[in-house]
């Protein structure tokens, strides 16, 4: 089984650990696959404007640097640790209301997708790039310092057909509604700090290459979650 984490932030957005150190941290801990998914924040509200102003977001301008740095680290991680690194982003559509907020992981993205686009346009563009679409922390979380992101869950009848998997567990939270609805699932750490290494992770029973991993998650065959602890 491949030990995977598909939800990791670095200093390219609001993570506290740089990309290289993040890669080493996961590599030293024996991970097989990780996805770097820094925030791409919508700039059409005060949250987004602040995030863009203080560089807590990957932007259209920084996207190329971000991708090339990930590619460089991916090569190093493969040689050193035999660990596969997948480039991704977390489309962050934040609002003051939890019912209007949603975060989406786009894993194996190739071109920049702005968070200010409407949902359908984002989904279609992500599909065009053959990226994996994951709805992250889709229900109420234990973290009360941030607004919950319930938009996708509240509108699941409309959007579920676009979503490849839902986060059934995020860091310390488990969302049982995902299992009740029998949606495809994965788990991720939402890594921002070193201590977040110890959190919910995904286990995949497939080959260690991009296509097999995407196929495994989409079909949700051979997927398990584990609480990674020391």
């Amino acid at each position: 089984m491949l030990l995977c984490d598909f939800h990791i932030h670095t200093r390219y957005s609001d993570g506290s650990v740089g990309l290289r150190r993040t890669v080493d941290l996961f590599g030293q801990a024996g991970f097989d696959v990780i996805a770097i998914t820094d925030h791409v924040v919508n700039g059409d509200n005060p949250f987004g404007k602040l995030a863009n102003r203080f560089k807590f977001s990957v932007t259209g301008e920084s996207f190329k640097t971000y991708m090339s740095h990930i590619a460089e680290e991916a090569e190093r991680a493969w040689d050193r640790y035999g660990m596969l690194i997948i480039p991704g982003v977390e489309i962050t559509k934040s609002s003051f209301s939890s019912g209007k907020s949603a975060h989406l992981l786009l894993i194996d993205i190739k071109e920049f997708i702005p968070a200010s686009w409407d949902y359908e346009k984002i989904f279609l563009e992500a599909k065009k790039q053959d990226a994996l679409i994951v709805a992250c922390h889709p229900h109420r979380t234990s973290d009360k310092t941030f607004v919950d992101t319930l938009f996708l869950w509240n509108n699941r009848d409309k959007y579920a057909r676009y979503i490849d998997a839902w986060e059934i567990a995020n860091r310390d939270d488990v969302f049982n509604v995902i299992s009740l609805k029998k949606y495809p699932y994965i788990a991720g750490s939402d890594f921002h700090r070193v201590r977040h290494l110890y959190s919910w992770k995904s286990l995949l029973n497939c080959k260690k290459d991009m296509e097999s991993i995407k196929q495994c998650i989409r079909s949700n065959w051979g997927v398990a979650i584990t609480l990674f602890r020391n």
Partner: protein
Amino acid sequence: MVLFWIFGVLVFFGLIIYGLQIVAVRLALSPVRNREGHPILSQSCPPISVIKPLKGLEDNLFGNLESFCVQDYPEYEVIFSLQDENDPAYKVVRKVREKFPDKPISIVVERCHHGFNPKVNNLFPAYRHSKYPIILISDSNVMVDPYYLRTIVKPLDDPEVGLVCNLIKGIGGKTIGSIFENLHLNSFILGNICFLDRYLRIPCVVGKSMLMRKSDLEAVGGLASVKDVLAEDHFIGEKIRGQKQRVVISNYLINNVNEYWNLQKFINRHVRWGKMRWKIGGVKYLLELTINPVFTACLPLLLWGPTEKTLSILALVCLIKIIGDFYLGRSISTPTHPSVYLLSPIKDILMGVLWFAPLADDTVVWRGNRYLMGKDTRLSLCPERGGAWKTRIVEGIKAKIAW
């Protein structure tokens, strides 16, 4: 006023010892390389079984284990020993073995409950599995260079040498706990090991790296003789010395990688180590406080308040300690940023406070288990805290009577 001068003398005594420690470190490290700058390596290379007991993820675990698989040594094996396949370290050792398929790497997973010391329990199956007459017991948080084995095996050319251990340097501090840990390893621990070895001829065995012949270990009772003590490294050394064999501290500095410790982990380790020294050294442990000049210099400040004299003494001692630790750090080539040494006095004050902990409590928590520790660090089971305080007192009295 007399009391003030007594404290003054204690501070001065602490600084003198500290100065001697620095000299001892310099002398201990001097002949690591030959004139051409190459390490002095052993020409005879007997086969070695390297035993790595593992439990949980240490900082830099993959890199640490990998460094043992790329040794420039003709014949050796590496045995990774775990108690449980669910241990997160199991995944890491499998990846290390996959990376070096042509190296003689074994993974031994076997639950073993021979004694109370979890590290020794972990060593039993690997020891049985080892095939060479010389073994190296090495902790998982140790990283070495490719010429490590060739360097440390040299003293074993002398048949009178029964055990070779190493000096340690702490590297990689990225959080406050690990910065404190590395500062402490690179000043107090390193300084004291060299001081004891150089001036008092007391080799201080630290279990991070212990090279010995199986025959010598078995002659002193083998691993079974230390299965119930916490300081198994110290007692292996003592027993080997008891057989009229020498314990040598190699001047090869091994890297102890501590990157992401929190303060609690640092405190736990040093309370545990303090308790071990208290149980082994007895009254000699009391002397330790006097070789912490920063803490001793704080005491007049507490007694007489912040006067010009008390503040000046403290400031001067802190400055000397910062410069001294910086110099030691440079001597052992640690990649620590100079500004980090400004934290050295704070660490010393914390260590001064922690010094009192062993005097108050006989229990120790290690690798998730709580034990009662008796004389010579002998372990016995300790009921869990909370509720059964009467049982704990009775057990404590029993332990004291038993040893």
